Structures are given as C-alpha cells and as structure tokens.
C-alpha cells in the first residue's frame, strides 16, 4: 500500500450535482481497487495560471488516498475518458510527507473527537442549569449591536 496525492481539475461550468457525481465516481473507483480515501477537499473554482484546453477556470478537487500501486493505472484511464476532467495529477508521497500526513490525520481525528465531546458536555450543562444560561447569552450579544 502506498500513499498518493491526487489533484483533479474539473470543468468550472459544471453544476454542483455534476461535481458531486464526479467526486463519487472517483472515490468509488479508488475503493473498488482496495484503496482508501484518507482526505478529500474541494478547493472550489479557481482561475488557472495558464489556459488549458481553452479553459480559463477550473474546479479543483484534492484527494489523499492509500492504495496498492495497481490502482493508479485504472484511475488514470478513467481520467483520460472522463469528460468533466481536463487535467489531473497523481503523486506518490515520500516518507517524510507520509509522516507529516499521518500526524495531520491524527490531529484531525483528535479535533473531531474534541468537537464531539464538548457537545455532550454542554448538553449536560444546559440540562442542569437550563434557564440560568440561556438569558445571559442574548444580553451579551445585544450590547455590541447597540
């Protein structure tokens, strides 16, 4: 299993549903080839630094995934025939990049766990204190508005 980083540029004229579909198709293929998507981001519509196939803008998708090396070929084949994609780049991550990635993933998990945990705590506080907490909040927010 190797770690890969993948940037895909989609047609910026595509609507959100089309982008969802494209993203799903890519993640499905990765998972079908025994890969695992670790991170995916949408950078959104960006101006390209230079014109590609008469496109001035593109919708950037960013994936980080773990997969056997055999998964790359079919993925590239898909991009070549997949109409919304007009540029892509797949990069194998080196040791140091993998270490940095793992630590960032751990940090993300910790953050998610933290976000989940305080919710439970605040719920308990709200239940126990209830009325005492609620009135003080609108008063504070109202002052700066005046």
């Amino acid at each position, binding site marked *: 299993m190797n770690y890969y980083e993948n940037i895909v*540029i989609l047609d910026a004229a595509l609507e959100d549903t089309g982008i969802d579909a494209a993203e799903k198709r890519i993640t499905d293929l990765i998972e079908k080839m025994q890969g695992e998507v670790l991170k995916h981001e949408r950078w959104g519509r960006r101006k390209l*630094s*230079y014109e590609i196939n008469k496109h001035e803008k*593109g919708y950037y998708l960013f994936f980080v995934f773990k997969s056997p090396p055999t998964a790359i070929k079919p993925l590239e084949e898909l991009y070549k025939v997949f109409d919304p994609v007009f540029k892509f780049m797949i990069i194998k991550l*080196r040791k140091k990049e993998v270490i*940095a990635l793992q630590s960032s993933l751990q940090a993300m998990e910790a953050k998610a766990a933290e976000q989940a945990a305080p919710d439970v705590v605040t719920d308990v506080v709200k239940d126990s204190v209830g009325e005492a907490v609620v009135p003080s909040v609108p008063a504070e927010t109202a002052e700066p508005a005046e």
Partner: protein
Amino acid sequence: MVQKGKGSEHVKYKRFMRKKFCRFCAEKTPFIDYKDTRTLKSYITERGKQLPSRMTGTCARHQRELTEAVKRARNIALLSFMEK
C-alpha cells in the same frame, strides 16, 4: 573581475552584504509542499522563472526539492510556466 575587487573596494562591498541562508534549513521544514504557492512564489521571478540559489541562498538539497515543487505546481496550473 574578482581579482580587481580584491582591494579596498572588495572589503567595502562585503561589509554591506548580509549573509544569505537557506530558509528551509533554518525553519527545518520536513518537505517543500508544491501546493504552498505563497512560499514558492518568493523563489521565482516575476516572469515565472525559478531564481538561482546564488541569489536566494537556498542550499543544494532544498534547491532540488524546490525545483520539483515548482514543476509540480506548474503542471497543475497553480503556477504559470511564463507570465506574460
């Protein structure tokens, strides 16, 4: 030219030079990220060409890594090959 400047002029020139250093070594960055265009842009000219290490002071290893990062960024249109 080097021999000519060996006299007092050379000393004067040297006094005003601030010593260059490799920023990546100083900051101990684990790797140079091609997605970080803000950093990369300080190592290319206005025209989009990469600056030589003799101007930026980058060490040989990091200059090589930087070259790779710039090329990757250009490939995926985060940086331009040539600014008009």
